[in-house]
């Protein structure tokens, strides 16, 4: 039995791969649910109704999907060009804390139509800087950005922790470690009243479409793909390697920073160290499930959010740990990697 590279990658197979991966991940989680002593099919039904069955569940799923779309895009854009950005979590937090730092101080008193775009921009720039550091170290010293971008996540979270215990601490929070609020003028308008759903969702979807267009049609998109697929040939063709990678890093880091900014300004209004339940890391899974396709990221983010929200309510109803959501999402990454492999190779005897 041998494994052989496919000459063509059939489109149907590429589209089917994530579905197969998700079904496989759900099947394996089903075994775990059964071991936990709950009825498997009932559990899956509860996950779906939990995520979509009620107005609250439905809007909550979309709210959760918003940052995942942005961090998923951040990973997809970077991975396409073989920039291994594992630091979206740190970029997310730096974007968030930057927004908290400027909204009530530098930008205070600005009208919302100026304040909101300016604050989002600040968040994106903070995220950019956070990825330019590891990329710069790769370009200058050849240090692998997988390690540096990953480790910087912990540095940033500790930095945020320091800020919200120190200079940016909210004096009115009864001693809770949280940042000063961004203020009502900086809050993103709600999409549906009396829910947490805000216009960040529309921004994320619009950006996904924009990124798709950029990758498919622009010079930058073609060059970044060339750099990712074969850097030597790209350089021979005159593609400026460092410049292209820096642009990719700005886009990727910027998207992750924007995710943090939108989460603060859309949902909480202030920063805590549990602002993100791992959105930066889940973004990697979202990107892989989407096969790095920007429009696929929208769907993959919805799936991931469904699992998180649905498993929460399923866990409450059946009395099993909601960690099953983390397990399922993590498993779907593994099954997706296997699926991707089989879109490229076939088994032959």
């Amino acid at each position, binding site marked *: 039995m041998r494994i052989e590279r496919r000459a063509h990658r059939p489109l149907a197979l590429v589209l089917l791969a994530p579905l197969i991966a998700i079904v496989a991940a759900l099947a394996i989680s089903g075994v775990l649910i059964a071991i936990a002593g709950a009825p498997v099919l009932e559990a899956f039904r509860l996950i779906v109704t939990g995520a979509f069955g009620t107005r609250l569940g439905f809007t909550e799923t979309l709210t959760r999907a918003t940052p995942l779309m942005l961090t998923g895009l951040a990973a997809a854009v970077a991975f396409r060009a073989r920039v291994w950005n594992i630091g979206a979590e740190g970029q997310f937090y730096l974007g968030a804390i930057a927004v908290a730092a400027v909204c009530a101080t530098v930008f205070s008193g600005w009208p919302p139509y100026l304040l909101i775009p300016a604050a989002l921009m600040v968040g994106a720039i903070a995220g950019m800087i956070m990825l330019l550091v590891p990329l710069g170290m790769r370009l200058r010293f050849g240090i692998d950005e997988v390690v540096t971008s990953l480790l910087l996540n912990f540095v940033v979270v500790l930095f945020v922790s320091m800020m919200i215990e120190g200079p940016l601490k909210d004096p009115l929070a009864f001693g809770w470690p949280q940042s000063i609020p961004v203020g009502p003028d900086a809050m993103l308008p709600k999409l549906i009243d009396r829910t947490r759903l805000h216009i960040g969702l529309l921004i994320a979807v619009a950006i996904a479409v924009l990124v798709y267009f950029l990758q498919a049609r622009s010079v930058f998109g073609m060059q970044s*793909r060339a750099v990712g697929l074969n850097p030597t040939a790209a350089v021979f063709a*005159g593609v400026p390697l460092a410049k292209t990678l820096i642009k990719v890093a700005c886009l990727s880091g910027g998207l992750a920073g924007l995710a943090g900014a939108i989460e603060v300004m859309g949902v909480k209004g202030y920063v805590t160290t549990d602002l993100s339940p791992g959105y930066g890391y889940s973004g990697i899974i979202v990107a892989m499930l989407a096969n790095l396709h920007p429009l696929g990221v929208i769907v993959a983010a919805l799936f991931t959010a469904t699992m998180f929200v649905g498993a929460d309510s399923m866990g409450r109803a059946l009395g099993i740990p909601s960690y099953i959501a983390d397990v399922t999402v993590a498993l779907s990454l593994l099954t997706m990697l296997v699926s991707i492999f089989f879109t490229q190779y076939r088994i032959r005897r």
Partner: protein
Amino acid sequence: MTAVPVLRLTGITKTFGTTIANDAISIDLAPGEVLALLGENGAGKTTLMSILFGHYTPDAGTVEVDGVQLPPGKPRAAIRAGVGMVHQHFSLADNLTVLENVMTGTESLWQLKSSTGAARAKLLSIAERFGLKVDPDARVGDLSVGEQQRVEILKALYNDARILILDEPTAVLTNIEAETLFATLRVMAQSGLSLIFISHKLNEVMAAADRVVVLRGGKVVAERLTGATSKAELAELMVGRRVARPVREAAVPGPVLLQASNLDVGRRLSSINFEVRAGETLGIIGVSGNGQTTLGHLVSGLVQHSAGELQLFGEAMDRTSVRAMIEAGIGRVPEDRNAEGVIGDMAIWENAVLERLWQFSRNGLVDRGAARAFAGEIIDGFDVRGGAPDSRTRLLSGGNMQKLILGRNLQNRPRILVAAQPTRGLDEGAIAAVHTRILDARRAGTGVLLISEDLDEVISLADRIQAIVKGRLSPPVPAEQADARLLGLMMAGDWPQDGKIAHAH
């Protein structure tokens, strides 16, 4: 064949997917015989030898050594039966000595003390017997490529090989080294060893072999004694039709387009001088690894010179870039198609325009219509087969990939064409096509800088020839004076320092 065959392949068949690599091939090898296996890329030579050596299991057929059948798919059994293989890409450890390399794999892992003394004596006696001089204590990494190949051969002989298989043995050698190798092969055959060497070069087959088996499309198409055939006949048998490489007519050199004066690139090129004239081809011949890559990159705009002067159309270029070179009208064919020339996973149209995206974009957006049209023109004009503008470039064969690369450069009639190893690894038909294109461009007034390791190619295409050795360029010799012997001397670095090459006849 009068004697009992020492090796007999019977009805060897092997398929990969839908392609039949070997189709019922039967070959005998007599003791003391030198057999050449001649065929183009993809004819099935390497597959056949891999089956013989036990790397692959055949679908059908048997391998017999001295009348005893070898178990399929067992390299160790092949080695024990006395089959030795010298690969095109050496399997030597650079940081070990010659003796250590030769001994590797011959002793049990659990043996506490290795018997270096006995091994050294055996190695030296083999070396003596076949005239393969080596220092057993030299580090392999310090040896020249020719010497490394000698170590590979010694390694096989050390394992008591009586049948030696050499896969494209001359691909990495200079002419002189190749002649030495053939002399060694003769000695080995006379002392009773049987040899098979794989090649697609007609000259060396005629020079070194007793008998030739021609493979085409996985089948044995002919078997000839070298005394009873000719290069022309073998070429036709190998390709399956008459293929004539185009012949160069006299050049009408125009003005100097590109000129290097005492130019350095770091330590990789030192004080080189050359000029490329319109309507003329300058050939740079040399053994791989002597600075050709850097020279190619210099004129392609990838590296900068650190001293001396590079003049393009009479104007000094201080800093170059890929875009500046392309805009100035330099067409660039890189030495490694797959690594530098194309991006296999991108579409053909993308590879056609990637290096000149500024011509095919507006406001930062790629003009895909124009790009596809350009790719279509190349596909039609340069006979690129096996793909449409939207198909993945990986699916093209080497020859068609090279036509695509030539096409994207020649479509816009460049003033200078830099062609580095333009036919490396191509088969005879594709070589003829590439040569025709290069000669056409030259006739149209393009100045061609041809960097090649292939002596025949340089002699047939170039008007003037310079040799590159250790980052230095010899003075040019006119093609009329250049023969294999003179070029061989030049490639070995043997040229007088006063700038004149003595006529070597």
